């Protein structure tokens, strides 16, 4: 079976990094087949989701300023339909962890993530969020948000320039476009225990 290749305007598929991850993901999702008409419906839903990723206004440090710059006039992520930045986590689809996450902030971040409605995505922006970055050796910094949240896309940089942030968001779009709404969701997070 041919592997579905998500199409993004103005960047050819081959120019993207880390395509092998997507290919592997698709294979895993398609392992037990799927109905054709469901596939079409999935495409429609994924098209909607991928073009309407509303970020949570969340920023802790330097990367947050670049995140604001992406929203501002010169880079303008409104072009992708991302501009409806929601201050309430209930209404956001995407959390951009822009900046250092410290021990004191970690439970707060987790709580914000838990407050978001499904489907939700996480982008780790910048060295601090990916690995602790410059503050790797500090006593109070979480070395990578993937320790506490399932991260979908990593954007390296310190801070990443606005184009790199846009590129990261496009990468996320590509990932969303391959998801399956019916029959299998590709979340890394384990289902939380409901009973309490």
């Amino acid at each position, binding site marked *: 079976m041919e592997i579905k290749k998500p199409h993004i305007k103005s960047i050819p598929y081959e120019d993207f990094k880390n395509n092998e991850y997507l290919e592997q993901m698709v294979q895993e999702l398609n392992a037990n087949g799927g109905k054709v008409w469901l596939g079409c419906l999935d495409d429609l839903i994924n098209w909607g989701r991928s*073009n309407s990723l509303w970020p949570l206004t969340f920023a802790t440090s330097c990367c947050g300023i670049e995140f604001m710059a992406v929203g501002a*006039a010169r880079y303008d992520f409104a*072009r992708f339909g991302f501009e409806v930045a929601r201050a309430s986590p209930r209404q956001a689809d995407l959390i951009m962890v822009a900046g250092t996450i410290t021990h004191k902030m970690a439970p707060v971040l987790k709580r914000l993530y838990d407050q978001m409605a499904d489907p939700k995505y996480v982008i780790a922006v910048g060295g601090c969020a990916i690995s602790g970055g410059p503050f790797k050796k500090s006593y109070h910094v979480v070395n990578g948000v993937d320790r506490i949240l399932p991260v979908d896309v990593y954007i390296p940089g310190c801070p990443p320039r606005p184009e790199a942030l846009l590129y990261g968001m496009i990468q996320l779009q590509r990932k969303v476009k391959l998801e399956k709404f019916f029959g299998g969701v590709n979340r890394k997070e384990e289902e939380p225990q409901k009973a309490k």
Partner: protein
Amino acid sequence: MFDFSIITNWIHEQLISFMPTGLAVFVECVAIGICIMLMYAVLAIIMIFMERKVCAAFQCRLGPMRVGPYGTIQVFADVFKMLIKEIITINHADKFLYNLAPYIVILASIMSFSCLPINKGLEVLDFNVGIFFMLAASSIGIVGILLAGWSSNNKYSLIGAMRSGAQMISYELSIGLSILTIVVLTDTLQLSEIVERQADGWFLFKGHIPAFIAFVIYLIAGNAEVNRGPFDLPEAESELTAGYHTEYSGMHFGLFYVAEFVNLFIIAGIAATIFLGGWMPLHIPGLDGFNQAMDYIPGFVWFFAKAFFIVWLLMWFKWTFPRLRIDQILTLEWKYLVPIGLVNLLLMVIIVVFKLHF
């Protein structure tokens, strides 16, 4: 001027010809209901897209560009996403009221929406107390907002709802006064009648200065009534995260969001109807050739053109001014708009009594 009642009457007759009158009326009601809902949805999508593009243009950027040509189908993507997004149930909320609130808001909005005369013969609800009904219907929305704020069990929501209550109830007064000014001029409350009276010139021009003042007051108060900037305190993003709908997710939030935009359109639609002549084309007394040429443009085009022009004007306000503080909002209303509105009403009465209008 094309009269749509010809078509509606024809359909009515066709239906009666093969079914009992009661059933026919029922079928018509259902059909009209569906039409209104559809139009409501379509308008919401157009409004949201317009908002995003217009605000981008004021802010020296482009706005949606990549979904469809010039981003035209951007909002559809948002709708698809919203529809399948999880609706979170809040543990300590009053579940019944919490779930009810968005529907009250949307109901109030649809009710006042159906009062708008779109074209000659295309009035859905048209009684002799039309304006009165519309004002009453639109102010039900406040109940929904208060409920949403109260039942969410969130302090931000509560403050937002309280602000909203104080603000909307205050500004209702100014809206009433400015509409009353025009009612004095027309001596009717029926919306279709009001439009008809403007065949020889819109009230904005016919009513001298008082009509103009009433128009400005109406725009300000209308903007406040729909909680839009600079009066967007109830959902002041930098203060209260998202105000009364902080805890709403998925389509429930979507309903609030949609209602906000359609309410804006309704406010603009009413303004267009009572000040700018609704679907009535631009007529200048004395220039018959010009008037006839204007008549070739269908009425609903006039209506939407006028309404969207006012929407654009309101967006221009929103994207220029900083937000007011709660006490300033109330000062503006009670110390400026209400006294001015009252004096203005008096002026209009004098004008009408002494027949000074055109």
